[in-house]
Structures are given as structure tokens and as C-alpha cells.
């Protein structure tokens, strides 16, 4: 699967979205979202197959995070539908964590949501954190962790329940260089595990490591809704 760097893929993807092919894990069709009178997303389509890594790019305010939140189910689209093939793992851009809970506390809590025992949540979560060089020996509350370390925890929480669809909104914020490279290596690993991965990114240098690049048009498509 090659890179398509020019992407205004919406028309092409529309055709796919109408008749999803086998192996599709995420199909968003005709997504429109307005905030007030401003159109953020206008008839946007996105489909991702199992074992595919997609980079979602675009200018600030193009609606990348909004699209991801809609796909995760955290935000309701004004129009359009989303269909998914399995469990969703979502990693937000901002670290929405409990400030005075430790990483272990978070793993237990999120693991419990996915039906895991305390022991299982800790075992799986710590294994994921170890892959990203999280300082497991330090029992600090998240408020006392660095931004990059908090983001590692955020990413681990998204991965904890072994989701088949991964929606990652600039998940490498604050990562040091080694961890950043490690993250893209993990994208390859997730591809091999047949996960459908969408990464919101501005890091154009890494686009060769994804299967498709989808650029959301920003202001050109954004318009004021007429009264």
C-alpha cells in the first residue's frame, strides 16, 4: 500500500463508504459537523481497513480532532453515519487524566471498564507502558509526570483493551525523539496485528510510514451557513 500525498481523498473514499469492502474496520460516511454557524466538517468520508495505518493531516482548525471524536463516538455528527468493526481505542491530544491518581490507578480503572480484573489490567497496562519506556518504578501521580510521560499513559489506556480500531490524535505530544521513533515503529506492529489505525499528525516526515494520507481541507471548505 503506497502513500498518496496529495490527498483530497473524499470523493474516492465516498465510493468505498457506500459499499464497504470486507475487512473494513471503520467507515464514516457523509460526516457533517457545525459549531454554531461555522461548518467544521462538510460531507467528509473516511474508511479504514484492518491492517491499515492512515495519517489524517490538515491545517489547524480543519476538523481533524472533531472527526476523530465523532468516529470515537464522543461527539455527535449533525449528519452522516459511522460504522465500526470492533472495539475503539481513542487517545486524545490533551491528556485527560485524573491528576492525583497514579498510572496504576488509571490502569485498574480503565481495565475494569473493559471487564478486566485489577491484576489483569495492571499486567496488560504495565506491559504496554514498558514498551514505551514509561518509568514504572516511580509511583507518581500523573500531575507530577512530564507531559510526554503522561501522554505515554494516555496511549497505554487507549491500547489497554486491545482495540481493533485505534484513533490517535497527535499521540506523540511531548515524546522525546527515541519514543517518537518508537511510536512509529509501533504503528507498523499494529498494522501487522490487523488493527485499523488513524493518526492525526502534522509530522510530514513520517508520512512514508503510513498507508494513506488523508488531508482534510480547512478554510476552503469552511463556510458560514446562510441564515
Amino acid at each position, binding site marked *: 500500500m503506497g502513500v498518496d500525498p496529495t490527498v483530497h481523498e473524499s470523493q474516492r473514499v465516498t465510493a468505498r463508504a457506500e459499499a*464497504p469492502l470486507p475487512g*473494513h*474496520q*471503520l*467507515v464514516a460516511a457523509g460526516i457533517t459537523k457545525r459549531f454554531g454557524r461555522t461548518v467544521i466538517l462538510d460531507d467528509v468520508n473516511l474508511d479504514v481497513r484492518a491492517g491499515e495505518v492512515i495519517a489524517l493531516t490538515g491545517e489547524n482548525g480543519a476538523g481533524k480532532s472533531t472527526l476523530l471524536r*465523532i468516529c*470515537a*463516538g*464522543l*461527539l*455527535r455528527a449533525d449528519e452522516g*453515519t*459511522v*460504522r*465500526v*468493526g470492533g472495539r*475503539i481505542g*481513542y487517545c*486524545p491530544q*490533551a491528556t*485527560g*487524566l*485524573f*491528576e*492525583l*491518581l497514579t498510572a496504576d*490507578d488509571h490502569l*485498574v*480503572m*480503565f481495565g*475494569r*471498564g*473493559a*471487564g478486566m480484573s*485489577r491484576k489483569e489490567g495492571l499486567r496488560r497496562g504495565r506491559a504496554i507502558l514498558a514498551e514505551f519506556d514509561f518509568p514504572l518504578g516511580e509511583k507518581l*501521580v500523573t500531575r507530577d509526570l512530564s507531559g510526554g510521560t503522561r501522554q505515554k499513559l494516555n496511549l497505554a*489506556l487507549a491500547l*489497554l*483493551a486491545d482495540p481493533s480500531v485505534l484513533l490517535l490524535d497527535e499521540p506523540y505530544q511531548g515524546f522525546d525523539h527515541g519514543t517518537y521513533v518508537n511510536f512509529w515503529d509501533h504503528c507498523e506492529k499494529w498494522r501487522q496485528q490487523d488493527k485499523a489505525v488513524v493518526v492525526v499528525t502534522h509530522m510530514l516526515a513520517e508520512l512514508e510510514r503510513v498507508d494513506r494520507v488523508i488531508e482534510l481541507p480547512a478554510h476552503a471548505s469552511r463556510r458560514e451557513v446562510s441564515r
Partner: protein
Amino acid sequence: MSSLLRVLSMAEMHGRDLLRHHVAVGLLIALPLSFYFSSTGQDGGHAFVAGGVGMAFSISGATLFSILSSREVDQRLVLSGYRPIELLLGRLLFLGPFGLVVAAGFATLMWTVSNPMHPWLLAYGVAAVALVAVPFGLAIGAAVPNELEGTLVLIGVVGVQLAAPASATASKVLPFYGPRRLIDASDSYGAAIAWPSILAVAYALTLLALARLFVSQRVTIQRHESVSSS
């Protein structure tokens, strides 16, 4: 069974998070104490009301803070498998007993210092404050967009409840009227107990229902159809 475990997990983590806010917990205890001791020079009944109803600031404030500070996480917890009602019940499971413990300590102090006519009724009234304060904080926290708005609503409601005389209409329609009447009754003879008790329970249940409604609206996620169903 798994639902119960999720509720218990939420209660445990919520308790850990709140109890690690040492300064906030200290202020939570100090605030009604200052209300009470600043009023002890006046007639005893007023001091009981100032301290007892003032405790609503603390309990509701702690509840409000907990629900607003975790708003972003809550939706992710629902995405991970929690149901909105489990988040609410988990908080209630920790904050309810926590409020009752604070109320018990506070009632004991007021009993020792001011010696009310009916100590058990004072304890009962202060416990009623705690039981209304938790769903009150949950409902405000789920309804308002930010901490500032929530704090202002809290100050407004509890402040009016404290400042307005019990006979005022404004006082009678506010959520802590029932508990206030119970606290009043602890230092008088022949005051009604049943009606204020019913009122307190009715307010607590109504506020809890509102909190349930608002929490569901805020943290519910869209469950998408399966790709295979197309």
C-alpha cells in the same frame, strides 16, 4: 457482578483522588467550623444552623469539584466500558459515606461545645444536610459548564439558605430547608420532624434524578453500528 465491580472501582479511585487533595480536604473541614465558631456567641440555634447548613458548602463543593474536574476523563471511561450511571453511583458510594463521616464528627463537636436540647436531632439534621449536599453537588456539577458557574450557583443557593429566615418563601423552596428545620428542631421543643425529613429525602431523590439526567447527557457516547451490519 461486573457492573458492581465497576461501581466499586469508581468509588475507590474517586476516593483516592479526593483524599489526595489535602488542602481541599482541610478547607472542607475548616469552612463549616469557621461558620459555626463565628456564630457561637449568638443564640445556640443560629450557630447550629450556620455550622450545619454551612457544611453543605463543603460537601457539595467537594462533589462539584470531583465531577467537574473529571469531565474529560468520564467520557473516555464510558468509551472504555463504563455506563454513565456507574460513574454516578461510584461517586455517590464514596461521597455519601464520606459526607456522613464529616457530619458525624461535626455533630459531635457541636454537641460537646453548645449542648443542644436534642443532640440526636442535631446529628440527624446535620446528616440530612450531608445526604442532600451530595446529590446537590452532583446535579450542579453535571448541569453547569465550568467550575466558576458551579461555584456561583453553590454560593447562591447555600448562601440564601443560610441568610434567609426559615419563614421566608425563598428559604422554603431551597434544597436545605428540610435539614435546616431539623437542625432548628434540635434546640427547641415540639418542632416537627416528619415533614422536614420527607422534604429532605424528596429533595435528595429529585436532585439525584436530575444528576442522572445531566450526567447521561454529558458523558453518553454514540454507539456506532457494526460495519458487518451494512
